[in-house]
């Protein structure tokens, strides 16, 4: 990430060196959100939760591994126990050590917490990246009159 100077003279060549651009750039190449001047940028944040284990009271959090018949992997996260196990976030007939679900969370099997016959129950944790796109270069017009002074402090991710 970098910023263009915030004072002094700015030239078209400075814009080209900073943002890139065609061989002979004109100011109109540098409208915000055009090909060279970004209007937003990606910020990724890592989130992690757990490990948790809770099976029979309150809210369910566990990883189920079945060693005979049926589903081999079951991911239970945040459903309310009402006398039976509520639908899993994910089930699979393959035995996995982690599941990345459609919601973007990667659920990871933790330590063994309980065992009943050929059913194994584990702690579970989950993590994901959340990408947001904050606006940038808001002082640079996306259309209309454009001046070199608009580019003081311009931002490049």
């Amino acid at each position: 990430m970098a910023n263009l100077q915030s004072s002094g003279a700015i030239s078209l060549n400075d814009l080209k060196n900073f943002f890139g651009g065609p061989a002979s750039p004109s100011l109109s190449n540098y409208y915000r959100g055009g090909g060279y001047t970004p209007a937003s940028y990606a910020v990724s944040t890592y989130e992690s939760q757990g490990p948790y284990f809770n099976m029979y009271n309150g809210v369910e959090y566990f990883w189920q591994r079945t060693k005979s018949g049926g589903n081999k992997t079951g991911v239970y996260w945040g459903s309310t126990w009402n006398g039976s196990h509520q639908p899993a976030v994910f089930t699979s007939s393959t035995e996995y050590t982690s599941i990345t679900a459609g919601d973007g969370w990667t659920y990871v099997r933790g330590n063994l917490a309980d065992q009943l016959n050929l059913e194994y129950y584990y702690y579970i944790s989950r993590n994901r990246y959340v990408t947001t796109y904050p606006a940038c270069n808001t002082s640079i017009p996306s259309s209309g009159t454009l001046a070199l002074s608009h580019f003081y402090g311009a931002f490049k991710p």
Partner: protein
Amino acid sequence: MTIDINEITTTFSVQEIKVFDASPEVTNVVGKVVWQCVLACRDISILAGGETFLEYKPDQPFVPITELTQQQIMDWVIQTLGGAPFLQHYKENHAIHLELAYKEKNMRVWEQPIPQ
């Protein structure tokens, strides 16, 4: 054995693709990918899986599904999940499983009665 994250390799494969039609002209757009990943270190490997929804971006060049490769599809999936930082954490989160698999590699089940 302590696993060095840099020793872990990941091999992603596409298991299933779900497609939709965005318009009469833009058909069979990849919308969801079911995938598996083999994480390996030395002679040990473990299996992870996932399903990821891909976002259709009309402003980006459209590639017909018949011209796509598995690698391209998995690149989109990994990018959707966070790119290189995701992969780094993905390996870190599985290192303990590889370590345990390595410990168990040369063990066998004791078939005799369990000592009292």
